[in-house]
Each structure stands twice: as C-alpha cells, then as structure tokens.
C-alpha cells in the first residue's frame, strides 16, 4: 500500500516537471510533429486492420443473433454503429494502443534512462521530463481522437462491406440502421474519452520508462508494467467518464 502511494506521489511530481515551462518552444514544436508521426501516423495501419475486422465481425454476430421476424434488419446497422462509436473506437482501440504505443514509449524512455541519455540531458541543463514526455503527451492527445474517428469510419465501412459481400443482410437496411437515432453527442463522448485515454497511456508509460533502473531486463519489465497499468487506468477512466457524461 505504501508503495502504491509512493508511486502516485512520484507520478504527480513527474507530471509537475513535465508541465513546467518548456525551454524553447520551437524545439518542442518539431518534437511534437515527430511524435505525431511516430506514435500517431504509424498506428493508422494497425487501427485500420483491427477496426475493419471488428466492424465486419460485429455485423455478422448481430445478423446471426438478431435473426428474428420481430426485430427489423436495420437494427443490425444500428447496433454495429453503437458498438463502434461508444466502446470499440475509444476504449478497445485505446487498449490496443496501450499495447503498441505504451510499450514503445516505456521502452524508449527506459532505454534512454539506463544508457544515461537522460542524465546527459540533465547535465546539459535540459528539463529531461518535459523535453521527452511533453511532446508525446501533446501529440497523442491531438492525434488519438483522429484515430478514433478513423476507426469508427473504417469499422462501420467494414460492416457495410461484409453485408454486401455475404448478403447476410440488405446493405440499404444497414445504412438505415446507421442513421437511426443518431446523436452527434455520442461521437463527442467517444472523443472526450479518447483524450483522457491518450493522456493515461502516454503519461503512465513515460512514468514507467522514466524510473526504470538497472539493465535491459528492467526495461522489458517497465514496458510490461506500462501496458498493464495503462490498461487498468483506461478501464477505470472509461467507467468514471461513462458515469459522468452519459448519465
């Protein structure tokens, strides 16, 4: 229990260091752009593949489960849309990104720690926490919501595609379902969640890497720890935000 509170304290102090005044804004701008490419753009492929398959699978599952003369077919499109927008493209995608981006951040910063690159920055008079972590947080907070929108579109398109290819349902009904009781606030809710998730993934993973010590084995452990803690944080955050925003 003591260790838990110690970690919370260390995390808070680290964040305080991260959000202190940057050394030179122009450098940070370049670094944010670089991180957007590394952490955001490079995740588009994975997002697309997973979203298209999940969108297709959800449509198929719904079509099989909701096969009843009492349930109109357009409900399949409606259910797919709700699953994709409300949970998959934010929460599940965030869990996937915690695995990809989170482990990447923790291992990168952890390696920098054990090879004394962070010490080298500190000796130069650079606020290493801010220099290394702030651009990553800003980049993911801006980019992950776009990944979520992209995932929603691809997932829903995947559902349409499977309806068209397999003929399991009429694609026109699917589109009708997509438009049924559609509130844009659902997308806003999903994007707000994604902003929080992006912060959780990046800051927790950076924390795990920043305080790694020892050898490469410890970097591996820090990376695993980053994924596990980020995932738990995402689940808790999801529950809290759903309660706050949706009820």
């Amino acid at each position: 229990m003591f260790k838990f509170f110690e970690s919370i304290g260390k995390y808070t102090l680290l964040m305080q260091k991260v959000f202190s005044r940057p050394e030179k804004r122009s450098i940070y701008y370049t670094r944010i752009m670089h991180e957007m490419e590394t952490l955001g753009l490079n995740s588009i492929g994975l997002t697309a593949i997973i979203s298209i398959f999940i969108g297709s699978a959800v449509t198929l599952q719904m079509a099989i489960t909701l096969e009843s003369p009492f349930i109109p077919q357009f409900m399949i499109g409606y259910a797919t849309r709700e699953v994709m927008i409300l949970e998959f493209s934010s929460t599940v995608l965030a869990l996937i990104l915690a695995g990809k981006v989170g482990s990447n951040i923790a291992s990168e910063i952890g390696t920098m720690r054990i090879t004394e690159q962070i010490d080298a920055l500190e000796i130069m008079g650079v606020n290493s926490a801010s220099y290394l972590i702030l651009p990553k947080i800003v980049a993911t907070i801006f980019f992950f919501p776009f990944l979520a929108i992209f995932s929603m579109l691809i997932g829903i398109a995947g559902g349409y595609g499977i309806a068209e290819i397999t003929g399991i349902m009429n694609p026109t009904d699917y589109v009708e379902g997509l438009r049924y009781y559609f509130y844009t606030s659902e997308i806003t809710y999903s994007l707000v969640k994604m902003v929080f998730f992006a912060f959780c993934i990046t800051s927790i993973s950076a924390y795990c890497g920043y305080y790694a010590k020892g050898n490469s084995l410890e970097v591996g452990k820090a990376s695993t720890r980053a994924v596990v803690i980020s995932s738990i944080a995402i689940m808790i955050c999801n529950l809290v935000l759903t309660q706050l925003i949706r009820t």
Partner: protein
Amino acid sequence: MIKVENVIKSFEGRDILKNISTEFGTGQTNLIIGRSGSGKTVLLKSLVGLHEVDKGAIYYDDICFSTLDFRARKAIRKDVGMIFQGGALLDASTVAENVKLPLDLFTDQSEEEKMERVNLCLKRVNLENAHKLYPSELSGGMVKRAAIARAIVLNPRYLFCDEPNSGLDPQTSIVIDNLISDITKEYNITTIINTHDMNSVMEIGEKVVFIYEGQKWWEGTKDDILHADNPELNDFVFASAMAKRAKMSVK
C-alpha cells in the same frame, strides 16, 4: 576550479563517500582513480548534481553548487560538459543533431551559425565525415569522440568524463586521452576524469585523486605515483607482477 569540502553520501544507510575533500584545478586534467565500487562514479555524479550530497559542499569557483536550486544550477550547467561511459548520445538523432542539440536549446544562433560550430567541433575530434551517421553506426571510439564534440560545443568551463576509455583498445584510448588533455589546455577547462585505466593516469594525470573504500586515500601527480609508498595505491596501480617489477626498478 572545483572544490570538494567534506562530502558525505550514503545510499540506504551504506556510506559510499566518507568525508571527501579535494580541489581540481583549472586548465589541468584531474583524474579520480579507484577500484570498482570504491565510490568514484558516485563522487563524479555528485560533482555534477546527478546525486545530492548528504553533507559537505561542492564549489564551482566561488559558487556553492550543492546548495543551489534547479534554476540556479541550470545557469552553471551551460558551462558544464560531460562525457558518459557509453557516450550517451541520443539514439534517435544523428551525430550532427546530437552535437547541435545544446545550441538549439540554449542559443539564438541562426542555423548556419550552429552548423558552422558543429562542423568545427566535429573537425576538432576528427569526425568531419560522420554528420549523418546515427550512434548505432559508429565504432566505440567514434561514439566517444562524438560525445566529446557535444560536450565542448557550448565552450564549457568544466568538463567531466566518466571512464572515457572503457571498451576501447589501448591505442584509441590514448587518442581519446590526448584529445581530452589538448582540449583542456586549449580552452582552459577544469577537467575531471573518472578512470581505472593506468595508461590514462601515466599519460595525462596532472592531478590524481585515489579513492579507496569511499575515502580520499591519496592525491598527487602521475610522477608522484611512481614514488608513492601508499600500499593500497601501489596494489591498485601496480596490480600485475610486471608493473610491480617496473615500480621496483624505478625505485
């Protein structure tokens, strides 16, 4: 000049540095030597502020560095260059980007001026053709030389080197030693080198501080070592049978 006064440092109740006092002069290469685990790396890291000392003081000329806060230290750190054991170059940046980083962060120079300075520093360490190479593409000696270039790019007044020769062959080690020594003289820097390479001691040791079990056990010049009667120092410096015979012949 860097002055150390009664420095004590412990980790988890274990005393690592026990009341160390010494002075490192300007324009000379000062060497800290000692066995592995003797506390010399802790001393070096305490000198640059990577470890906080428990007691005692560290002075950079007349400024008491150990009592300064982060912001005040930042001003001094612009005058500090450090070469780490493994080079500590940023893996994701090229050699030129690594050397340019301090200029990007702390100067308002134009891109041309910065590149001119980078070229000058890389030329000084004989790495003029390595601009676009990444650290993973460099040999051990090249990494050390790139680290030296980065350390001197802001014209530091204090240069710290943590085992600059580790992992290098004897010839490359001497090249690195002489490079550090020449730069020290050229820019009138206070240089402190942490080493257990006896070639370095005999080559460039203008002042040598021997740390034994966390205490300053002996200090003097490279010439004094040959005539020193300190048994721990002699056991350390003249560890091999051949070195012992050489010492006897000098005596």
